């Protein structure tokens, strides 16, 4: 045994993949595994950076053929217009089929009720799960990463959901080597997370390396915002600002893109990918901690929403 290893540098072999190449290869392997084993997979596509990276990886996995999956967007009705525009552009460019599950429609029908705080993120679960049932999707790709949140750190790459889309942490299958088990009973489906092992920084570095185009709101821009729960929120139809919340113009960007009512902007002058990466590497806050009101609800907020079928 080695008692005192001499300080040597890690051996650089020509056969060591860089971390981005290794993550890319792993994600592609996951996409192809699902294509080989499922009948009707769908990619959850929000127009946020993680789902954009997912789509980019899927395109690579099946080139020169088309991606054998459709896309699904859960539309809260409070989306940033820049993001919707981006979504439609990407769908058209790659000849993809887009399904939309609309929260607004559920509210109009009286099935869902607006929450007093105006946030619609928790309302996404029902339209999502009913769409999965009605379209009979058997595999649903999500952009969730294990580094995002404590409950997600326990998530499998292939996560089994029952017919109510519920996540039971005690029913998850052990996942060994790179052997993913996608078998499920009729009515059940599997949530698949190809970016499980990616960090926020990995995602950004990959976007930079691949030259992937993103919605502009990820970069610093001047915006009318007001402060609520310690975050800069954008004024909009969704119910802000109140009279007690003065609006100001600030130079901001978004670290995550979700519902306008609960996604906060951060003060930033990063207008390029490089500047964004430098800013993230030096940040002392996680992306959700800095920008998501809905994750601050309680210690187990994410776990509870996942159990109900949230992504």
């Amino acid at each position, binding site marked *: 045994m080695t008692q*005192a290893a001499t300080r040597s540098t890690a051996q650089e072999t020509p056969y060591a993949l860089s971390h981005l190449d*290794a993550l890319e290869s792993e994600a592609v392997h996951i996409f192809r595994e699902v294509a080989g084993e499922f009948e009707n997979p769908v990619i959850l596509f929000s127009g946020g950076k993680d789902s954009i990276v997912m789509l980019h990886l899927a395109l*690579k996995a099946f080139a020169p053929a088309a991606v054998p999956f459709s896309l699904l967007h859960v539309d809260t009705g409070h989306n940033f217009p820049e993001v919707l525009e981006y979504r439609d552009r990407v769908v058209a460019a790659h000849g993809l089929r887009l399904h939309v599950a609309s929260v607004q429609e559920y509210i109009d029908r009286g099935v869902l009720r607006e929450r007093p705080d105006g946030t619609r993120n928790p309302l996404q679960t029902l339209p999502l799960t009913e769409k999965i049932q009605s379209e009979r999707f058997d595999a649903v790709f999500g952009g969730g990463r*294990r*580094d995002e949140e*404590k409950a997600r750190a326990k998530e499998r790459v292939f996560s089994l959901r029952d017919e109510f889309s519920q996540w039971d942490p005690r029913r998850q299958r*052990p996942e060994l080597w790179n052997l993913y088990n996608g078998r499920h009973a009729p009515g059940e489906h599997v949530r698949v997370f190809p970016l499980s092992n990616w960090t926020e920084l990995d995602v950004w570095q990959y976007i930079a390396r691949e030259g992937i185009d993103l919605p502009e709101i990820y970069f610093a821009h001047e915006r009318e915002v007001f402060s609520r729960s310690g975050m800069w929120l954008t004024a909009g139809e969704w119910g802000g600002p109140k009279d007690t919340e003065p609006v100001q113009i600030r130079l901001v960007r978004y670290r995550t893109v979700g519902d306008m009512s609960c996604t906060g902007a951060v003060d930033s002058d990063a207008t390029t990918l490089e500047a964004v990466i430098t800013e993230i590497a030096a940040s*002392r806050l*996680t992306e959700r901690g800095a920008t998501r009101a809905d994750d601050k609800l309680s210690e187990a907020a994410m776990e509870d929403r996942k159990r109900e079928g949230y992504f």
Partner: protein
Amino acid sequence: MTPSTGTGTSTTLSTTATDTLRFATAGSVDDGKSTLVGRLLHDSKSVLADQLEAVEHASRARGQQSTDLALLTDGLRAEREQGITIDVAYRYFATPRRRFILADTPGHEQYTRNMVTGASTAELTVILVDARNGVVEQTRRHAAIAALLRVPHVVLAVNKMDLAGYSEEVFAAITDEFARYAAKLGIAELTAIPVSALAGDNVVEPSAHMDWYGGPTVLDHLENVPTAGRPEGAPGRFPVQYVTRPQTPELPDYRGYAGQIASGSLYVGQPVSVLPSGRTSTIAGIDVLGRRADSAFAPQSVTVSLADDVDVARGDLIAPTADLPPMTREVTATVCHVADQPLVPGRRVLLKHGTRTVTAIVKDIPSRLTLDDLSQHAGPGRLTANDIGRVVVRTAEPVALDGYAASRRTGSFLLIDPADGTTLSAGMAD
């Protein structure tokens, strides 16, 4: 434990480190594993302000006097309520030298199953012992699992040295006993490090209390241990995941075989066979996600085209004709049983190996292993959850299995319940 501000190396998240080490931690309940992990994350500056704030808040809410870094790692409500870890959690941190993916495995309920899961993808395992208790039954089991799963590097972290007077004799005695046992198990590479996770000795910062120890800290060792073996020694193995057929006007006849190289390397012009059919061809082209290449190696995801129009489908294996795996319909293996329902002879199962899933039947369970010393006990009749045992499985079609000793990727398989898809057992072929 109270996080120290740390005086030594600053490890701000680097954007330059490009190699990754996947490792796992194992320790019994109460020997300070969560504290060690918390210390690694905290001292390598991987805990961000809002996470720390949440943990401080939760510690106060529980009436604890100091910040409990274990709360950084326990994610589920039941875990926090009971102060235990239920499931494998994956954590990510980086230093300027390397990135790390940590499979943090609980020392509590179902720990065998969870440890086997964590060890299956790990290149290194950190086994914790309490300096006051030395090598205990659980330590021997953790070592046995690392040996069974063939984790290339093992670290023995002798923790709570502060409670053992930072004594060199205590450390040497524990290290000697563990090394003798590890040698018996066939563990090739072992490094022992005396630490105090609570006080921070030799985790990230070198200890001021143990001048007699001249070796690396835990983080030093994690940063310097060699990763990624050289694939030219391993046989080329390419399980086909998916057949790519664009069938467009531009590419009417294109057929590519998409997959991830599981072992070794492939090159253009290489004579290969397609298993199980045995048809031969040569590799005509390799596409590495949009880049043409003359060769590629594990674990790259590629698309391969062949010179001849042979029949290839998902589940087939492409391998060099000169170095083919044995084909068998009788798989003899060591399995870890991971399901609540027992495994019994006569049970019909599915066997998933690489990209191929075949119907199979459990013919025999000749023995169960005691994890204390990997000794075998004949005729157990069944395997229950967390048992490790020897099985003989008969498959309906031949499978191209390597021995797990030669290749962790191509020598491993799952047994699955055909009725509801439950993963029953994780297997390592002879």
